[in-house]
């Protein structure tokens, strides 16, 4: 066991799969010599050579295109999009091409691609770096969308994503990259996609969340416990597909739920979770399922960011509305 930050766990996962499978290729802007702007690919080029880990020209659409082409040649591409706000530049490759490859070709071809990309607020980036765009991805049929909230999960989920034979969008919250360390086994292990993690058990309220909001939700749960509430926290880990069984089992137990996301409120993951709970467990509910989200605006410039982003106080406030309903 080693103590690792999330970024170290990600590098470790990449190294593991580069070693395991010669078809794994890691590429993107500045991922080679520079080791990536966040050092996620630190030393990988040195270790595995320029043929396996390489820099590309500065063009996200081109990166998506070569990922698809390399996939057609039997490779297992792991491209990095330097910041997920640049998604719009590669949107056709993601939503128009790789997500449809299996159906379009009747299973003759697939896109075993894992797109890694940093996202998320709280680190005062310029515009178009921090946006939570996972809702767009989750609404795109044919994609899996994974968002780890801890170093341990990041390694196991990334290895599973790379081994998956369908395209996976693997989103890495920038604030979590170096915010804490935890024990991460040096040997390989996988965490299955589509399986949530119960971070904390409770019987009065379920908080369903993912990404950096997992930390805020745990903090809120701890505060609420001081006031006598027993709060369960579920980290979705994969937002497409959802782990519907874990969500529903929790809600049936607690009878009350809130969904917490960093993204804007409209048409997002939280709305989808609420709808699924309504579809499947409405008779178990003692209160409406409420959401904690950012406002329905574009991502705030950095001066307004601290208030724009939801935090544990917002979670407590909404949790109390549901608990006291």
């Amino acid at each position, binding site marked *: 066991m080693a103590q690792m930050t999330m970024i170290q766990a990600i590098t470790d996962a990449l190294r593991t799969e580069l070693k395991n499978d010669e078809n794994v290729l890691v590429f993107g802007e500045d991922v080679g010599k520079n080791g990536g702007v966040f050092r996620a690919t630190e030393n990988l080029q040195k270790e595995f050579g320029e043929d396996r880990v390489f820099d590309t020209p500065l063009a996200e659409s081109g990166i998506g295109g070569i990922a698809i082409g*390399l996939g*057609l040649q039997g490779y297992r591409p792991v491209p990095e999009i330097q910041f997920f706000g640049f998604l719009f530049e590669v949107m056709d490759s993601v939503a128009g091409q790789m997500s449809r490859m299996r*159906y379009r070709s009747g299973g003759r*071809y697939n896109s075993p691609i894992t797109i890694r990309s940093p996202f998320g607020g709280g680190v005062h980036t310029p515009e178009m770096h921090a946006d939570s765009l996972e809702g767009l991805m989750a609404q795109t049929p*044919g994609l899996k969308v994974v968002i780890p909230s801890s170093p341990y999960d990041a390694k196991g989920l990334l290895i599973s994503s790379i081994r998956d034979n369908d395209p996976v969008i693997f989103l890495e919250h920038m604030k979590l990259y170096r915010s804490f360390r935890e024990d991460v086994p040096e040997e390989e292990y996988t965490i299955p996609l589509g399986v949530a993690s119960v971070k904390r058990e409770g019987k009065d309220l379920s908080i369903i969340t993912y990404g950096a909001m997992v930390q805020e939700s745990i903090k809120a749960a701890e505060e609420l416990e001081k006031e006598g509430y027993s709060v369960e926290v579920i980290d979705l880990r994969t937002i497409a597909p959802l782990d519907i069984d874990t969500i529903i089992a929790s809600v049936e137990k607690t009878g009350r739920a809130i969904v917490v996301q960093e993204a804007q409120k409209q048409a997002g993951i939280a709305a989808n979770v609420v709808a699924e709970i309504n579809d499947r467990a409405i008779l178990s509910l003692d209160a409406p399922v409420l959401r904690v989200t950012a406002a329905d605006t574009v991502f705030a410039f950095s001066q307004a960011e601290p208030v724009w982003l939801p935090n544990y106080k917002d979670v407590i406030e909404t949790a109390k509305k549901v608990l006291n309903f």
Partner: protein
Amino acid sequence: MASKANQANFDVKKQFETVEEQFQTLQILNEEGEIVNEAAMPELTDEQLQELMRRMVYTRILDQRSISLNRQGRLGFYAPTAGQEASQLASQFALEKEDFILPGYRDVPQLIWHGLPLSQAFLFSRGHFKGNQIPEGVNVISPQIIIGAQYIQAAGVALGMKKRGTKAVAITYTGDGGTSQGDFYEGINFAGAFKAPAIFIIQNNRFAISTPVEKQSASKTLAQKAVAAGIPGVVVDGMDPLAVYKAVKDARERAINGEGPTLIETLTYRYGPHTMAGDDPTRYRTSDLDNEWELKDPLVRFRKFLEVKGLWTEEMENETIEKAKEEIKEAIKVADAEPKQTVTDLISNMFEEMPYNLKEQYEIYKEKESK
């Protein structure tokens, strides 16, 4: 007035003249069927010349039959190909079986001659996913609808070939309009930077649906866009099968030798509408222009050339036409026998393993489709 320093450093006129000089159109066979560039004549046996002619005649018949089947409601989406036979077929003729084709939506003939069964081309037209279920060993992907996407993917396929050490090329096709897409430039630029074995074809048929090529770009030729990516660009008479063959054969040799990609602009013309879905070319083309281009017809000039050489007869022409008609009839029968594509087929093909939501929806549609 520009300063003296500016004039000395930057002569715009000269710059463009120099570029234009570099992009002369390669022609080997003129409109009369005469060889006008003996030195560039590719090495083709008599049998190969006959085969190329046979394919062009066959494909012209396939185009006519497809249009008529579409009008009868027996085919769906169809983009007519007449006029572009030299550009499409002579370029494919220069390939080897292991080369990989990434076509645009009009480029179905190349797929057929690369091994896609005709019945599957018809299923593609009818909107059945089995049309795109490319048989093992046939190195193509289904026609791209998002124009430009095939260029960046071709760069990736070519890069993969280079990494594998395969002696093969990725070849992709777009039109004059496609060169305005960002992906066009990203594709040639990536392939150039990676020195990947790719061939990028621009079939300049002068109109992107209705928009004339003059409105696509201030660039005098489209091939000269290669210069910006640092790769060779070639303009060829796209109505001349020998020139197209020669250009692609040379590009393939360069690619195989590790010298990187080539951009080839074929000057051609589609006689028909953009697609059979209601496009009316009389709204944007004059009949004078149509007539001017029909005089350049690739079949007419190649037939003259072969007849003079004693390699083509009316009998061979008729045999080819009859064979085409017969095979089309058979292929339609095969396509007709294919059960309709279902929503459950679609649901089953989204992922390797169905997630919970699709499992539930599969049951719903299975029930609906059993009625």
